């Protein structure tokens, strides 16, 4: 890691015009990252083969982005983020379906519910280090899965949760038809835009610098006087909040919560998307979600065993392109 940093600082000293142009481009990408992302998302439904795919890119893009805050920026490889995604989805569904809470209240409750769960799981798992952390987050998320399976009167158990269709969104005197795929996309895009802004704000703050300091060298961060445990826990909870938001988006979109959202395969998919796109880069998670969902879309036309292809591609990425699609693009073209 330390060697990496010195290597990176050398090109900054070189002042050939090409290098300067590249740094300008990198700076522009960073300064305008939220607006650029929103602009790209605005176009997405008209570029992709189906509106449903576009909505999935929104949901899983937000999910991977929330995860990336912890994995890419704080350097903690969690294998249990399905729990927060699922908690957001279930709480939203239960709030609407069983308590008649309006959609905005249900979204808020979903995010808070996921955040509280992240606080509990985070508090336990950050006590462990390194490789243990991945195993403990995975195990605790499986605990959530089994609890949801048993508590079938609340969650519908294996059949999943149904019966909370949101047909229209009333906001500021307007009534938006939520069953129309295009308006649904743009409503959910507002949530995604908020999440993008929130993450960008976190990364620009001193807290953002602190989590990256912990990722680069935990001992050094501790010596510099950072409260490493507290910072990790806050990062864990923030990450959980964003993943829970993705869960509420998914619940509103599908009007159904399958039990599988909590399964460890979902956690694994989040990891794959983030790594495919490029961990520790702002655009990476969305690029990864898009790439993963497109692969699923295309390969599942050929074979029901599309996962073998996606899995192999993932292995190749770990071996040869650990920076992911966007990270490699940044390294090759921009820097």
């Amino acid at each position: 890691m330390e060697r990496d940093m010195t290597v990176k600082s050398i090109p900054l000293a070189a002042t050939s015009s090409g290098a300067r142009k590249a740094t300008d481009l990198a700076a522009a990408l960073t300064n305008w990252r939220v607006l650029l992302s929103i602009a790209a998302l605005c176009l997405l439904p008209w570029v992709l083969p189906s509106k449903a795919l576009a909505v999935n890119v929104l949901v899983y893009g937000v999910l991977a982005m929330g995860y990336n805050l912890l994995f890419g920026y704080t350097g903690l490889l969690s294998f249990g983020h399905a729990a927060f995604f699922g908690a957001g989805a279930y709480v939203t569904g239960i709030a609407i379906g069983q308590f008649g809470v309006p959609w905005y209240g249900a979204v808020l409750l979903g995010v808070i519910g996921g955040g509280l769960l992240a606080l509990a799981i985070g508090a336990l798992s950050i006590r462990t280090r390194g490789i243990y952390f991945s195993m403990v987050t995975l195990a605790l998320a499986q605990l959530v899965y089994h609890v949801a399976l048993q508590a079938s009167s609340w969650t519908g158990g294996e059949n999943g949760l149904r019966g909370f269709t949101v047909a229209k969104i009333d906001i500021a005197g307007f009534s938006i038809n939520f069953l129309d795929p295009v308006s649904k996309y743009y409503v959910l895009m507002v949530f995604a835009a908020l999440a993008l802004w929130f993450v960008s704000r976190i990364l620009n703050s001193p807290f953002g610098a602190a989590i990256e300091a912990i990722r680069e060298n935990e001992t050094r961060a501790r010596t510099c006087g950072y409260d490493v445990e507290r910072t990790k826990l806050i990062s864990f909870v923030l990450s959980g909040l964003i993943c829970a938001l993705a869960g509420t988006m998914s619940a509103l979109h599908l009007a159904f919560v399958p039990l599988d959202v909590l399964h460890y395969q979902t956690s694994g998919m989040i990891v794959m998307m983030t790594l495919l796109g490029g961990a520790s880069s702002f655009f990476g998670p969305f690029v990864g979600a898009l790439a993963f969902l497109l692969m699923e879309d295309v390969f599942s036309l050929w074979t029901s065993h599309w996962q073998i292809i996606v899995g192999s591609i993932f292995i190749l990425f770990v071996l040869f392109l650990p920076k992911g699609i966007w990270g490699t693009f940044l390294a090759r073209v921009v820097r």
Partner: protein
Amino acid sequence: MDAELILIQLFSGVALGAILVITALGLSIIFGMLGVVNFAHGALFMIGAYAGLWVASLTGSFWWGLLVAPIMIGVFGMAIEWLLVRPLYGRSVDDPLLLTFGLSYVLVEAVRIVFGNDGIPFPTPSQLTGVANLGVGYFPIYRLFVIVVVAVVLLLLWLALEKTKFGLIVRAGSRDPTIMRVLGVNISKVWLLVFGVGVGLAALGGVLAGPMRTVNPEMGSLVLIEAFVVTVIGGLGSLLGSVVAGLLVGVAISMTALFAPEMGTIVMFALMALVLLVRPRGLFGKAA
């Protein structure tokens, strides 16, 4: 609730725990030596069960399956280490974990393509069917056999690690691989072999578990998580920890099943959470 039923259930727990011990031990040996958490361990357990079934149906004898399948899958594990894991040494500790996770995805799908999605029954060998009277009640012979096999394998493993020159190299190599290189030991060969043995143990667990449940492509995912829980409770890298924690978890699951069947899996996680609160490095783990 009478004492006999509780004792029989205790035996069931030990048999269940024995499978966990052998699987978690493979995970722990690989980690202790190579510093790699093998996420494909559950998938290799499942492939072990399929390989056992395949060899048994080919030769018509369960015993050949029990003997050959772990060796076959162990060699396959060595190929995995050589081809996929070795290029990642010296990189972040997360990379082998991510790679083996991707591998488990591929292995499960590959088994689905070859053997189909549905479970296949694994017949108990005729010599081991039926029940034995233990004095306190009747107990399936096959489960007793599982306990005995695991005990023998543990003894052999202990002898190999503590009493042979190779065991000495393995133990020294897990302390300080650089010094071993300086001393002229080809540590990569040792790592290759240790990875193979660890994977072979997972496959052995799979073959042994076969007749106790149906063999299906999904059977590895629960086992992987159970093995994780066991190693977290026992302390990753500690062999004694794996044995004690494996038996503890096995007995805890089967005792809970006696009183509240649906809580069986949940109690295992509660046990892990408790250990994490009191002793984050695990019962037998060394301080970080």
